[in-house]
């Protein structure tokens, strides 16, 4: 039953074995590749904590079967930057101190990246709309909005 899949994650190619082609990509990233960026929040596509980019598009990895992701280029939060070399969006989140527990922040940054890839000068409303389906329970929203504005300015 178990099958092998090729995952191209953050520029590196990995081979992952899964028992079920419907296993969500999230579990391969977290358990097989030991990545911590994508997070399990709901498994239902409702919160955004698990967001990664698949071929440059923000998707919810809890709802993408591994068989659909195989062979495609995947970027996770780790792929944007590291604490030593922060991506400008990550830098903006640090500058604005835009996290409390931080559990949602993967989703916020990956969704913001998808926005800024297409809209270099988003209005505040654009940012709010782009993040409307990403949930944060700690109430860090105001800072996240400021961080995305700061990132937009830095990237423009």
């Amino acid at each position, binding site marked *: 039953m178990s099958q092998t899949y090729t995952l191209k994650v953050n520029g590196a190619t990995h081979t992952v074995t899964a028992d079920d082609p419907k296993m969500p990509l999230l579990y391969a990233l977290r358990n097989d590749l030991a990545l911590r960026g994508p997070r399990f929040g*709901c498994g239902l596509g409702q919160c955004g904590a698990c967001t990664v980019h698949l071929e440059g598009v923000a998707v919810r990895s809890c709802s993408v079967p591994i068989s659909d992701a195989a062979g495609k280029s995947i970027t996770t939060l780790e792929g944007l930057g590291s604490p030593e070399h922060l991506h400008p969006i990550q830098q903006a989140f640090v500058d604005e101190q835009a996290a409390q527990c931080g559990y949602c922040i993967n989703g916020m940054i990956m969704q913001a990246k998808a926005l800024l890839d297409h809209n270099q000068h988003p209005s505040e409303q654009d940012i709010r709309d782009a993040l409307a389906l990403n949930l944060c329970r*700690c109430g860090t929203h105001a800072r996240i909005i400021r961080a995305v504005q700061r990132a937009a300015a830095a990237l423009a």
Partner: protein
Amino acid sequence: MTHDILTHERLTRRAFLKGAGSLVVTFTFLPQRSSAADAAAPGKSVATNAVDGFIEIHPDNTVTIYSGKVDLGTGVRTAITQIASEELDMPLTAVSVIQGDTLTTPDQGVTFGSLSIQVGGMQIRQACATARAVLVQRAAERFKVPASVIKTHEGQCWNGSERVPYATLIETEGLILKVDPKALLKAPADYVIVGRSVARLDIPGKVTGRFEYMQDFRLPGMLHARVIRPAGVHAELLSVDDSAARKLPGFVATVREGNFLAVVSRTEWGAIQASQAIRPVWSDWQGLPEQDKLWAYVRNTAVSKSEDLQKVGDPAAVLQQSPKALRATYDFAIHTHGSIGPSCAVAEWKDGKLTCWSASQQTHLLRKQLAQMMKVPDADVRCIYIDGSGCYGRNGHEDAAADAVLIAKVVNQPVRVQWMRADEHGWDPKGPPTLLDFAGAVDETGHIAAWSSQAYIPQRPAQVSVTLLTADLANMPHEDAHPGNVHQALAIGYQVPNLKTTVHSLSHTPFRASWIRAPGRMQNTFGNESFMDELAHAAGGDPVAFRLSHLNDARGRECLERVARLAQWQPRTTPASTEGDVVRGRGVSYIKYELVRTYVAVVADVEVHRKTGKIRVTHFYVAHDCGQIINPDGLKNQLEGNIIQTISRTLLEEIKFDRSHITSLDWKSYPILTFPEVPTIAMDLIDRPNEKPWGAGEPTASVVPSAIGNAVYDALGVRLRSVPFTPQKVMQAMRTTI
């Protein structure tokens, strides 16, 4: 607001510059020691009155602080680092913190009630002051000079010409000392680190996927488990058919203990699949009240004890003689913590001894509970904290820990339990339903003549702990649920000649209760500050002026006056005009938290759509006095978070249930506030460096619902007395008022 980032080198140059208030200072910190990986320090003290309980100075002149209070995503780790670094005169970069490990950290009590700094941080400050005094003494002896000559700086003592690092001074004698409660604290005027916006230590790791959350923790040979909860809250497990689950690759075991049911697999996805494939048969249990008769149910629940918290004069007599006495009933729905990451824990048994990793806010208490459940001595249990998703109170972390402990025992291998979304929404302990009755009267001078309040809240067992769900289901030893000190903040700080505030403790509440952010204080303050508004309007007074005229506490008055200034409050005595579909209003609310600490005053601006009943909170203003501020930016972060989360609770949140179980099992059925609805927030932080630091965070949450309700009244002339303020309730209130 823009932040200027300071590196460590620049800080040392600029640290003494005045007026650098809004700067966020960033450092490259020591890699935080992972308590999980740390070998146990044999024989390390965990006494709360021992310096070596809290502080360990290493040969490389770095220091580890052992904190029983943990960082629940609130920045406590950073604040504790600042406090210790300041009081020890150690560079920030030389200080790391280990939190919530029962083997190495003192039991500083549960991390709740916004007490981490006020209590936990102050114990650590005193231990550091004791240590510094002793180090100075030792240096004085070494240099043969009076202690008064010795200065401390950057982890060294110096006599004006020679320096000796702290590490050298403890080489022979160590730091085995009792905390001296009288050890002289540094003068706040000399602070260089406390009071500054030091950047949070954890954020770089959190924005890059490098930070280790509980959910990331793995052990070699670890198995994955999922729990399957009863179909009804108290349903019995009659039988289980796990034949389909057993056929799944990786399947290891079904664990059944009374009504506790779980599946174990070698892979996480295998465990999830098995939990879906298993076929349990539960008894039909329908013991919950009907949701739409919840308040009648609460009112009819047997009262086990009634207690007057305040009693002055004779309010009953005054009320009877007042033709225009006001009476009002308030209610506040059942809420879940709603952590974005569901609870998770790992447990391992080795030679009869248990180690359990969890995001518990109360590892010491959890240790006792787990020991009791498993019938082993406390000493055989070690609980280690690893940061989880924010939890805002006692959520499911401890229950997931107990799940992992039981399953690991049965399968005799390390086990990781990750709750699914429905487990968290359905089975974390809840903020209980709260019902409040008020009566009041104003006299002809526009003052309150009488005030009477009665709260109907769950009773509190003597022990401050919440039943472990696992123990409850598996019928193992456990104690009763504890809702938190939900009587708090019913008593009021206003000057009223005839006053009675009464708590009726109910013998029963429908769901396992626990404390969730500002437990009871939020509900009681919702009633108090809304009713205060009702009385202000009855007296024809402006809500701010009316509050001030009943308040003789100077710091409280200043807080209210400052929020009025911040919001450019204009006196208002009648509801704003009601022209057009969208009407606007503003409301005020105030508290001195638990009558003994933090002052908060807020103003909320709202828009209400009269055709749909939808409320939008557009602006929030807060004036906040918690005494000494440790980290201004960290404080702002907390206040923003508490305001936004409580707007969500006020406008949207309510646990739904049928006669068997909770039906709000995901984010669709329990929506929370999203980006488009988040208001702008303005703050006035009142810093009092020479005062004690009081708790910050939940005091602000407690005033949010009433400020919104009062603003809606200002906009519409309609009083909302039931949280959440759903559009249906707004429409209903409009129909009955007009």
